[in-house]
């Protein structure tokens, strides 16, 4: 078993864990982060398969923007809030 095999095994474990977390987490923000994690792992796979262009796209779009998009959409729907306001109020109390 070469080092590359070990890396691939670890990546597969990471991907499956991330996908399961995205499905099972009740916290929507956490689920969005989990999908971004899956995309990051997939982009490493693309590097291993020598497709750096696709890897760059996957990292930028999948791990970067789509996670942000999911989180913002969830916030827009009122499913979670940015808790800055609240913590500042608490600080003043």
């Amino acid at each position, binding site marked *: 078993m070469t080092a590359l095999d070990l890396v691939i095994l670890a990546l597969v474990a990471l991907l499956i864990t991330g996908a399961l977390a995205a499905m099972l987490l009740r916290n929507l923000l956490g689920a969005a982060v989990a999908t971004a994690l899956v995309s990051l792992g997939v982009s490493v796979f693309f590097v291993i398969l020598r497709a*750096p262009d696709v890897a*760059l796209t996957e990292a*930028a779009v999948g791990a970067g923007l789509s996670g942000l998009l999911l989180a913002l959409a969830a916030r*827009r729907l009122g499913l979670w809030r940015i808790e800055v306001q609240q913590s500042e109020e608490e600080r003043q109390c």
Partner: protein
Amino acid sequence: MLTRYGSLLFATGFAFLLFSLFIALPMGEPPTLAGQAILNEAANSVGAANIVTSVVLAYRGIDTLGELSILFAAATAVGLVLGGQARAPRPSKEDGAGGFILQTGVDLLFPLLLVVGFYIILHGHLTPGGGFQGGVVLAAALVLPVLARPEESPSPAALAWVEGLAGAAFIATGLAALAYDHAFLTPLLGAGQLGDLFSAGTLPLLYLAVGLKVGAELAKLLLRLAEEGPAA
């Protein structure tokens, strides 16, 4: 209940599709001969060191225009769903401004992300990457202020102008080839020296247009999405 059966049906069909592909496709043998021909020809005829870019912009330029149109249609649809003009007043300074660490981090990251985005776009014909990837990085840079300082976020009107002009520049570059009796989107200006920054003819210009359009479009979309809180 019906949706559950529907998704089961979809999963079965998808598995069958993948299975038959797996059975029928000879692994490791490309089904067409175009790939090898492009690998042999592209570096000399187009002049882009990155073969992917010469396929995306020179051999399949109209495809890229189609991708831009799809992205435009999707962004327009999101704008439609989110509704009307920006009704909400621009957020004030107290409204959800980030803490000290977030603000300092954004101040450090913003110029870095801009440089990386433009680097990826302008070296699209030399190294992996290009207009789409760099454009997404630019969009991320433009959205950062929303997190830290909502009152300093870029104005949607300016982004719309950048997006429109960049899209028009892409099509104008394609039309310019028609004026010289070539097909639409044929690279002009000669191939140049392979590996130089100024090589591959009009491909870097096309990628610059693509990058600006994608960056402005996605930044606008994310700004719209972030602009109002929950409807409640």
